[in-house]
C-alpha cells in the first residue's frame, strides 16, 4: 500500500508508540490516584500498619457507656491496652483497640470476645492483627491438627481460634507472605470429601458406613490418605428449623378445615384452583334460610386433590363460621354472645355451595372442621365433669337406699317362710286328726290349696332363690366406685380442659390456609439435606476414580460426591483489603485504558479509518488489529487486570472496538472528499493528503499534535 511506503508508516508507528505510552501513563496515573486515595482512607480508618489489633463495634447510642466499660476491661484484664474511637458507620461506632505486645497470646485473644460481651451496645469484633495469616472456615475435623501445624510454622508467634477461623499471629511483617505461602501449602494437604445422600435417605449406621469408606479409600490410595471426620454440626440449626416447619405444616393440616366437594361435572376444577363457598341457604341467590356469620366476605377454598367428580380442599380465606346459617329470629342472645367460631355449633359437616371464582355454580360441598369439633368436644367434656360430681353423690345415695331395701326384703322373705311352715303344720294336724268337722275340712282344703300355690315354683320360692347377698355385694362395690369418683379432683380436670380449650390456636380457617401457604412457599426453596459422610482426603485421592468405589462400598448409586478445601487461607485484614484495593486499582486501570482507547480512536484513528474508507481501501482488519494492539499494549503497560478478563479477552475486545470505530468512523470524523480528491489531483501522495489536508481538518488529538511538525502549510 502506497500509504505505508510514502513514509506514513513511520508516522503511524510514532503515533502508536506515543499514544500507547501516553494512555498507559494516564491509565496508570488514574488508577494509582484512586489506589492512593483508598489506601490513605484505610490508614485513616484503621491506623498505621500493626498499630491496632481489633475493631470493636458498638451501637452509637451506647457510645459513652461503652467507652467506660472498655476502660474497665482494660484496667481489669489488659493493663496497657489502649483504644480510640474510629469512624461511625450505619449507627455503629468502631473502636480501634490495641493490645500491648507483652499481653498478646492466644488466651487473651480467645477471651477477648467474652470480655467484650459486657460492653453496652456491643455489636461485634473484627481482628485486624498485623502481621497475621488466617485459615478461615476450618473444618472441625482438622481444626486441632491444623492448629498444631500452624503453630509449628516458622515465624508464627501463636495461633488462636476465632469461631471457625484459626488466626496465626506472625513475628515479622516481611515474612508474612512466606507464612501465607507455607500455610497455603499446609492447607492444600487437606481436602474435604463429602458423600451426600439424597433427602429422605437415611443411613442406618453412618459411623460404620464412614469407616468402611475410609478403609476402602485407604486400601485404594494408601494408609492415612483418608480420615473420617463426619460431623453433624453444620446446618444443624437449619435442619431443625426446616423439620419444625414441616411438623408445623402437618399440625396445621390436621387442624385445617377440610372441604369435600361433590362436583356437578367431572373435570370442572383442578388442584390449585380457588373456589368460592357460599352457605346453602343463601348460595343460590336465596337468603331465605336465615342469616350467616358474614356474607360480605367470601369464603375461598383451594383445591388440593381431584378425583373424578369429587374434590377436596382447604379454606384459604374466610372461616367456616361464615357458612353456618344462624337461627333466623328470636335467638339474638346466641348470635350476640361470642365470636362465630366459638358459638358455632359443632356440626360434623357444614353444607355449602361451590362456585368458581367467576361465579359459576360447580356443585355442593361439606365443610368439616376438626378444630371446631375438638373445641365442642372439650366444651361438652367440661360440662360433663361439672355434673359428674353430683351424679356420683346421688348414685351413692341410691345404692345405699337399695341396700337397705334389700335387707328389709330379706327379713320379709324369712317371715314368709316361717308363716309357710306354720301353715303346713296346721294343715298336717288337720289331715291327721280322725274326726274332723266340715269347718275343719274347709280350712284344711284352703290351706292345702294355699301351700300348693306356694310350692314348689311359686314367686315366693323364686324370691327365696334370689342372690340377695350377691346383690348387696354389687351395690357395695358400686358405692365404693362412686365414692372413688367423688374423691377424684374433677375440678382440676375441668380446669385443665378449660386451659387446653383456651390455648388451642385461635385461628380462622383463612389464617390457617394462609399459614400453610407461607410454609409451603418457604419449604419450596429449601431442601432438607439427607445424611452425609465427611472424610478428609489427601490431595492425591482422585475423586473420579474413587466415586465407583465409594458407591460400591455404600451399595447405593444415588450419592453425590464433591470435595471442598478444608480451610481457606487469607492474609491479615489490611493485606486482604489492600489486595482488594489492588484489584480495584487494576480494574480501574483496565476501564480507564478502554475509555482512553475509545477516546484515542475517536480523536486520532477515526480520521484515518474514515480516509481509508473514502479511498475505498478495505482496511477493517487493520482497524481491528490497531484496536487489539492499542488496548492490549495499554492494558499491559498500565498494569490493568479486570477480573475474568484474560489476554485473549482483551485482544478480542480491542479488535471489536477497532472494528466498531472503523464502522463509525465516517460519522465520528467525517473527511471532506472534495479536498482529498483535490490533493490527489495535485499530485500529493496519500500520506501528504493525510498530513496536509485530512489530519489538520480533523479532531484535535495526538495525531494532530504530532502531525504539525510534518506539515508544509502548518
Amino acid at each position, binding site marked *: 500500500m502506497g500509504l505505508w511506503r510514502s513514509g506514513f508508516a513511520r508516522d503511524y508507528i510514532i503515533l502508536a508508540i506515543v499514544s500507547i505510552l501516553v494512555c498507559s501513563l494516564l491509565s496508570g496515573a488514574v488508577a494509582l490516584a484512586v489506589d492512593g486515595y483508598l489506601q490513605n482512607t484505610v490508614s485513616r480508618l484503621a491506623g498505621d500498619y500493626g498499630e491496632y489489633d481489633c475493631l470493636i463495634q458498638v451501637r452509637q447510642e451506647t457510645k459513652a457507656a461503652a467507652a467506660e466499660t472498655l476502660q474497665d476491661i482494660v484496667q481489669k484484664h489488659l493493663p496497657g491496652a489502649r483504644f480510640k474511637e474510629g469512624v461511625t458507620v450505619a449507627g455503629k461506632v468502631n473502636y480501634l483497640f490495641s493490645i500491648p505486645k507483652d499481653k498478646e497470646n492466644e488466651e487473651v485473644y480467645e477471651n477477648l470476645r467474652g470480655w467484650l460481651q459486657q460492653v453496652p451496645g456491643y455489636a461485634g469484633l473484627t481482628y485486624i492483627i498485623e502481621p497475621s495469616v488466617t485459615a478461615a472456615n476450618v473444618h472441625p475435623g482438622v481444626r486441632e491438627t491444623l492448629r498444631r501445624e500452624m503453630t509449628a510454622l516458622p515465624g508464627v508467634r501463636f495461633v488462636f481460634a476465632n469461631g471457625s477461623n484459626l488466626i496465626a499471629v506472625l513475628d515479622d511483617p516481611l515474612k508474612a507472605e512466606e507464612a501465607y505461602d507455607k500455610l497455603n501449602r499446609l492447607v492444600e494437604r487437606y481436602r474435604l470429601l463429602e458423600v451426600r445422600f439424597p433427602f429422605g435417605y437415611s443411613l442406618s449406621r453412618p459411623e460404620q458406613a464412614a469407616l468402611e469408606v475410609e478403609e476402602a479409600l485407604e486400601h485404594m490410595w494408601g494408609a492415612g490418605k483418608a480420615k473420617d471426620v463426619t460431623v453433624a454440626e453444620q446446618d444443624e440449626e437449619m435442619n431443625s428449623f426446616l423439620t419444625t416447619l414441616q411438623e408445623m405444616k402437618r399440625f396445621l393440616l390436621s387442624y385445617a378445615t377440610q372441604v369435600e366437594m361433590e362436583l356437578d361435572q367431572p373435570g370442572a376444577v383442578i388442584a390449585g384452583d380457588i373456589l368460592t363457598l357460599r352457605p346453602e341457604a343463601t348460595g343460590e341467590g336465596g337468603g331465605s334460610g336465615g342469616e350467616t356469620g358474614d356474607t360480605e366476605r367470601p369464603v375461598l377454598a383451594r383445591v388440593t386433590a381431584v378425583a373424578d367428580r369429587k374434590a377436596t380442599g382447604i379454606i384459604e380465606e374466610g372461616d367456616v363460621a361464615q357458612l353456618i346459617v344462624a337461627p333466623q329470629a328470636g335467638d339474638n342472645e346466641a348470635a350476640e354472645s361470642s365470636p362465630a367460631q366459638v358459638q358455632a355449633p359443632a356440626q360434623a359437616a357444614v353444607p355449602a355451595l361451590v362456585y368458581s371464582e367467576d361465579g359459576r355454580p360447580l356443585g355442593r360441598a361439606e365443610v368439616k372442621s376438626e378444630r371446631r369439633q375438638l373445641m365442642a368436644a372439650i366444651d361438652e367434656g367440661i360440662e360433663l365433669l361439672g355434673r359428674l360430681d353430683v351424679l356420683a353423690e346421688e348414685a351413692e345415695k341410691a345404692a345405699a337406699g337399695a341396700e337397705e331395701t334389700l335387707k328389709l326384703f330379706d327379713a320379709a322373705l324369712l317371715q314368709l317362710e316361717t308363716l309357710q311352715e306354720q301353715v303346713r303344720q296346721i294343715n298336717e294336724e288337720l289331715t291327721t286328726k280322725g274326726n274332723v268337722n266340715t269347718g275343719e275340712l274347709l280350712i284344711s282344703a284352703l290351706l292345702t290349696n294355699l301351700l300348693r300355690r306356694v310350692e314348689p315354683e311359686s314367686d315366693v320360692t323364686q324370691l327365696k332363690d334370689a342372690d340377695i347377698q350377691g346383690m348387696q355385694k354389687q351395690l357395695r362395690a358400686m358405692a365404693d366406685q362412686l365414692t372413688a369418683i367423688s374423691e377424684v379432683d374433677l375440678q382440676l380436670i375441668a380446669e385443665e380442659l378449660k386451659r387446653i380449650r383456651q390455648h388451642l390456636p385461635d385461628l380462622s380457617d383463612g389464617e390457617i390456609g394462609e399459614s400453610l401457604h407461607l410454609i409451603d412457599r418457604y419449604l419450596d426453596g429449601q431442601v432438607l439435606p439427607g445424611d452425609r459422610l465427611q472424610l478428609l482426603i489427601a490431595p492425591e485421592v482422585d475423586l473420579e476414580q474413587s466415586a465407583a468405589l465409594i458407591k460400591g462400598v455404600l451399595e447405593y448409586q444415588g450419592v453425590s460426591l464433591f470435595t471442598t478445601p478444608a480451610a481457606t487461607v487469607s492474609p491479615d485484614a489490611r493485606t486482604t483489603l489492600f489486595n482488594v484495593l489492588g484489584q480495584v486499582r487494576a480494574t480501574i486501570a483496565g476501564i480507564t485504558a478502554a475509555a482512553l482507547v475509545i477516546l484515542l480512536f475517536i480523536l486520532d484513528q477515526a480520521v484515518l479509518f474514515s480516509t481509508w474508507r473514502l479511498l475505498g481501501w478495505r482496511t477493517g482488519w487493520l482497524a481491528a488489529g490497531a484496536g487489539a494492539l492499542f488496548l492490549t499494549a495499554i492494558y499491559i503497560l498500565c498494569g490493568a487486570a479486570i477480573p475474568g478478563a484474560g489476554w485473549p479477552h482483551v485482544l478480542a475486545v480491542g479488535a471489536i472496538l477497532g472494528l466498531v470505530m472503523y464502522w463509525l468512523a465516517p460519522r465520528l470524523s467525517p473527511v471532506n472528499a472534495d479536498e482529498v480528491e483535490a490533493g490527489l489531483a495535485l499530485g*500529493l501522495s496519500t500520506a501528504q493528503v493525510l498530513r496536509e489536508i485530512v489530519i489538520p481538518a480533523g479532531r484535535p488529538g495526538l495525531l494532530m499534535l504530532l502531525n504539525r511538525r510534518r506539515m508544509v502549510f502548518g
Partner: protein
Amino acid sequence: MRNMLQVCGLTKTYNGRPAVDNVDLAIQRGETVVLMGPSGCGKSTLLRCLNRLTEPDCGEIWFEGQAVHRMAGAELLAYRRRVGFVFQHFNLIQRLSVVDNVALGLVIAGEERESALAKAEAALARVGLGPTVYRRRPVELSGGQRQRVGIARALAGEPDLMLWDEPTASLDPMLVEEVLEVMEDLARTARAGMLIVTHEMSFAVKAADRLLFMDQGKLVEEGRPEEVLASPRSAVGQRYRKLWQKRYSLAGHNQGWRRILGAGAEKGGRSPVAL
C-alpha cells in the same frame, strides 16, 4: 503531429454497467477539446480515469509516450502534477488561504516556498484575482472567484494537460461568464492541451478545436465544432444541434452566432458555418 495524450480502449464499469466503454481518444499539445453529452453518460468518469483519480478497468493511457495506466507511486504523482484538474465544485482546501491553496501543489512538488508563492500569485493574477483575495479563505469568496482560484491552482504547476470537469456547472448564471472568459482566454493563450467537459455550447463553438459527443460511455461523434453542429451524425449531436438552433433563433442571435463563429475562426482560422 504527435499526440500528447493517447487513450485506447479505455473502459470503466460500475456494478457491471459500463460508465466508459472502450473509448479511444487523442489530444495534441495546445489543442482544446470540448467533450459534451447528456448527464451520466460517463464524461466525468473518463476525465477522472485520465489522471487515475478513478482506476479504469482496462485500456491504455499514454502521455507523451509514457504508459499512464501502468504508473504507480512517485511516477503517478509526477504525472498528476503535469495534469491540471479543474473541479465542478472547486474542491478548495478550506483551512488554507487562497494563495496557499494555489501554492500547495508546487511546494509539495518540491518548489521553494517563496518561489511557489510567487508562482501562485502569478497564476491568480492570470485568472483576474488580485492581492486582496490572497489571504482570504475560500469560504470568503464568491462562487466565480472560488472557481477562478481552482483554475489558478491547476494552472500554477504549468501543466501540459488540463482537464476541466464542468467548471461552470455549480455557478450562478451571473458568475458563469466570468469563468468562461478565463477559460476562453486560456484556450486562446495556453500552450497546454485541454479536455473540457461542459454544457456551454457557445464556449465550445468559440473556443474548441474539436468537439466530442459522448453517449452511454462511448464517444459517438467528433469533429470540428462547426462541422459537427452543421451536420451531426449521432443522435446526441442532433439533439445538441436542435438545442443550439432553438436557443439562438429564439434569441434572434443569428448575427451574434456568425460573429461567434467568426471569433472561433480567429483562433483556428475556421470559416463560419451556414445553419
